[in-house]
């Protein structure tokens, strides 16, 4: 295959570009990067494995192992657990944002992007947009399985969709933490390791699996300030049809704060990175 000859004429023609296009908008550039993220899913479908399998394992395991003991029956527990498992699943998937970013840097793809005359945050914003597709797939998996094994949300379709939407907003904001790790750490695996260390306490020391009222007071204090707990409460509320505006607003505010703090740090690191 390498025994090909480059035709000087076609090369000359290709180089002699007659009309130069105008520069695309920030939105169109970001969408191009989102398209790239989707192409990656198409070419490397293995990356969806975690997204598809972990919600199944967690939901089944927790429902049937602990459901009876914790809530009296698996049926009662799934109503409580499912929104929490959904939150946990999506939050764990956000780690891949940092992992993919770091892989791009390691492989030199990012320097190509940085050398382009484009809106600077576009590669990262686009990747995050592409990731929301991944989160949506994971949400559908998780809720679909829940419905099969007895999850009956009182909030109806609207409540469930609202819960997922709130979760996606939060995940987008949280991803900026992992983009920072992706830019700071040396290898994709280091990003994975450190991110998991951040996520473990955030997800387990929360109200995802059990009501925190039985926890020691120190832990309860942490659970209470843990933004993941607020998110879980809000999503439960929305899906259960008893949404508390206060919780939803708290989650939205924390999403805005996370984006306002971590997105500029990410962009600073992105610009000054060598």
């Amino acid at each position, binding site marked *: 295959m390498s025994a090909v000859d480059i035709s000087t004429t076609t090369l000359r*023609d290709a*180089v002699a570009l007659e009309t130069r296009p105008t520069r*695309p908008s920030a939105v169109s550039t970001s969408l191009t990067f989102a398209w790239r993220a989707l*192409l990656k899913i198409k070419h490397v479908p293995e990356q969806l494995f975690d997204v598809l399998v972990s919600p199944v394992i967690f939901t089944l395991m927790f429902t049937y192992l602990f459901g009876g003991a914790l809530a009296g029956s698996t049926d009662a527990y799934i109503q409580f657990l499912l929104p929490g498992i959904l939150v946990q699943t999506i939050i764990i998937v956000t780690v891949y944002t940092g992992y993919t970013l770091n892989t791009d840097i390691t492989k030199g793809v*990012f320097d190509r992007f940085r*050398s382009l005359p484009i809106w600077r945050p576009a590669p990262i914003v686009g990747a995050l947009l592409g990731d929301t597709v991944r989160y949506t797939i994971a949400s559908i998996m998780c809720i679909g399985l829940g419905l099969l094994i007895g999850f009956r949300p009182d909030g109806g379709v609207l409540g469930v969709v609202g819960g997922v939407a709130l979760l996606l907003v939060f995940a987008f904001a949280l991803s900026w933490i992992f983009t920072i790790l992706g830019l700071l750490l*040396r290898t994709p695996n280091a990003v994975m390791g450190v991110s998991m260390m951040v996520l473990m306490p955030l997800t387990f020391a929360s109200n995802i699996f059990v009501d925190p009222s039985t926890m020691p007071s120190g832990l309860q204090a942490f659970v209470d300030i843990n933004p993941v707990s607020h998110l879980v409460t809000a999503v439960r509320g929305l899906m259960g049809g008893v949404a508390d505006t206060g919780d939803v607003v708290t989650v939205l505010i924390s999403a805005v704060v996370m984006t306002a703090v971590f997105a500029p740090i990410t962009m600073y690191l992105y610009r000054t990175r*060598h």
Partner: protein
Amino acid sequence: MRDASGPAVEAAGLVKHFTSGKKTTKAVDGVDLSIPAGTVFGLLGPNGAGKTTVVRMLATLLRPDAGTARVLGHDVVQDADAVRGAVGLTGQYASVDEDLTGTENLLMLARLYGFRGTAARTRVSELLEAFSLTDAGSRQVKTYSGGMRRRIDLAASLVLSPRVLFLDEPTTGLDPRSRNQVWDIVRVLVDDGATVLLTTQYLEEADQLADRIAVIDHGRLIAEGTSSELKRSVGQGAVDLRLADASRRGEAADVVQRVLGTEPTLPTDPYALSARVPDDGAHLVAQVLPALGEAGIAVPEFSLGQPSLDEVFLTLTGQPLPDEQGSEEPAPAPEVSR
């Protein structure tokens, strides 16, 4: 804006330090460059000499710690965006996405540069055709051979037909045939009026392509000139001999020194002997073998080597090229995108 008569790329006093832990290394230590439009400039040096760092600063990927640089009249710091719109970059650290196909990679770049719809697709097929990648377009880049990989990298940096092209070690790791293809491509681009800054570890490559060559070592330019000027400073290359009888190496060395007038070096191999051909001494080479024959010294192997980067270094710095380990100071970090 650009002064039509000015150089396409100019740099004055470029400095870049890298700090890892407590140790600070001057990766680039005061580099001045002036590359006329429409020419090829070769930046020649060993691993870790600062070549990639210079290119990364000129391509706006790294901010210089001191000094200034302009590309087509645009300052690389103040006017970085204009520079990005005018240059193409190919190198180990500005790569394409291996998971995507060749077509998808180029389509993504075409869209990022502002081509829309069919215009983007047309541009991509033109480039695939020009780089003999049409058949491979629908395959993931990770399945490409080394030569194809380098061609898709080149195509990626030519989507917008940049007037200035930075090629960072474009042929490192390629087989001779693919290397020749890359050289041909560069010649076409320059014929077409592009300005090329090329970094390389190979004197031959700089010799083949570059109008002017600068030799860089420890972040400083230690020599600059045309290829023939540099070669003149190095001499005509070296004569390498291998003797039948190791015990007669001393005698052979005396004969060679008498003929060429330069002192032979004695490699660790006891049968080997080599000597630099003096400037304007090419005609003396033919006398070496007869002189050895007269002395009754059998020479089963004889070769005349072109001056190598090693010899350029030996001549310019008085020191041989640092070996792989020594050259990587302070670790590969400065050359890598960290």
